C-alpha cells in the first residue's frame, strides 16, 4: 500500500507510462545496495532515494576529502573528515524520510562481498577501481542479483546492466583487470549523468519496465555529446558467469 503522503510525493512518477502504482509498490518493496558513495554512488543513491526505493544499503569505507567535492553531491564542505556513508545517509534520510537507509562503513573484500549484497535485490556500482568491481560482479553473478555497472573518465561515461544467467557480466566485457591509475580525471557532471543513468536502469529493472542496457555497453561521449553503443557478448570461458546456465 502507498500512503497518502507517498501518493503525493511520488505523484509525478506515478504518471509515468508503465511505471504507475504497480511500479511504485515494487520500488517500495525493493532493497538496493549502492557500493561506493563517491561521484557515481552519491548521484545514483540520491535518485533511488527520491524514487522511493524502500531500503537503500550504502557501503563505503572512506572519509570525505576536499578533493571529492567537485562531484560527490551528497558530501558538502562541512562534511570533510566524516565517513562518507554517514554524510550520505544523513542527506538521503532527510531528502526522503519514507525510506530506510542503512550505512555500512566497510571496504569490499573477497571475504565480505557476498555478505554485503546478500539482502539486496539489485546492486549499483559506485566504485572507482576494477579490482573491487570484479569482486562485486562475481558476488552478484553467484547470487543471481542484477548489477548496474558504470564508470567515468573525464567527460566520458560507460554503463552496462548485468542480469546474471541472462547476460554477459563485467568479466565478459573486460577479461583482464586493468592496472589502477590514480587520480582519475572526472568532471562532476560526468559522474552525475552516469549516476542518473544507473538509477534509471535500477528503477527499470526493479519495476520491470523498458529495456535495460543488457549485453550492450553504452558509452556517453560528453566531449562530442554523442552516445555510442557496442555489443557485449558472453564469454564461454568467463571465470565468473560461464557456469551459470542461460534460462
Amino acid at each position, binding site marked *: 500500500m502507498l500512503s497518502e503522503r507517498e501518493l503525493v510525493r511520488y505523484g509525478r512518477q506515478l504518471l509515468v507510462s508503465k511505471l504507475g502504482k504497480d511500479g511504485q509498490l515494487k520500488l517500495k518493496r525493493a532493497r538496493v545496495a549502492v557500493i561506493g558513495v563517491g561521484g557515481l554512488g552519491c548521484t545514483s543513491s540520491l535518485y533511488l532515494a527520491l524514487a522511493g526505493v524502500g531500503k537503500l544499503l550504502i557501503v563505503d569505507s572512506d572519509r570525505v576529502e576536499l578533493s571529492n567535492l567537485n562531484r560527490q553531491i551528497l558530501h558538502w564542505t562541512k562534511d570533510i573528515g566524516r565517513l562518507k556513508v554517514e554524510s550520505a545517509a544523513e542527506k538521503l534520510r532527510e531528502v526522503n524520510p519514507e525510506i530506510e537507509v542503512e550505512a555500512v562503513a566497510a571496504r569490499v573484500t573477497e571475504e565480505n562481498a557476498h555478505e554485503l549484497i546478500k539482502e539486496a535485490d539489485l546492486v549499483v556500482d559506485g566504485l*572507482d577501481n*576494477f579490482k573491487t568491481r570484479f569482486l562485486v560482479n562475481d558476488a552478484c553473478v553467484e547470487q543471481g542479483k542484477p548489477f548496474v555497472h558504470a564508470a567515468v*573518465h573525464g567527460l566520458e561515461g*560507460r554503463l552496462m546492466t548485468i542480469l546474471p544467467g541472462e547476460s554477459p557480466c563485467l568479466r565478459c566485457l573486460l577479461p*583482464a583487470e586493468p592496472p589502477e591509475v590514480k587520480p582519475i580525471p572526472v568532471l562532476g557532471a560526468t*559522474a552525475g549523468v552516469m549516476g542518473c543513468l544507473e538509477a534509471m536502469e535500477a528503477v527499470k529493472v526493479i519495476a520491470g519496465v523498458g529495456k535495460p542496457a543488457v549485453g550492450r555497453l553504452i558509452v556517453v561521449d560528453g566531449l562530442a555529446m554523442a552516445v555510442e*553503443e*557496442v*555489443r557485449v557478448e558472453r564469454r564461454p570461458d568467463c571465470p565468473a558467469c560461464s557456469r551459470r546456465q542461460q534460462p
Partner: protein
Amino acid sequence: MRVKVKLFATLRESTGVSQLDLELTGSKVADVIYTLVDMYPQLSSMLDSNGKLKKFYKVFLNGRDIDHIKGLDSPIKEGDVLAIFPPVAGG
C-alpha cells in the same frame, strides 16, 4: 582501403584525436592497430611486449567485440568503423 577509427578516454587524450579516417594497406584489424601505432607512437601503450593488444583494451569492429570475431586477425573492409576503448575506472 579507408576505415574510420574512433578513440576514447585516455587514447583520445594522448593523441588529441577522437576520430580519424585511416587510409591503409592490409586486410585485418591488426593492420589498423599497427598503422595507428606508427602514426601515434604513444598508442603503443595498448600493446604488450609481444605486440599483442592488452586484454583490457577493447576493440569493436562495427559495434562488435573483435574477441568474438577473430581477434586482431578479424577481416576488415572499406568503410568499416573501428572503436577502441581503453579501460575506464573512475567513479
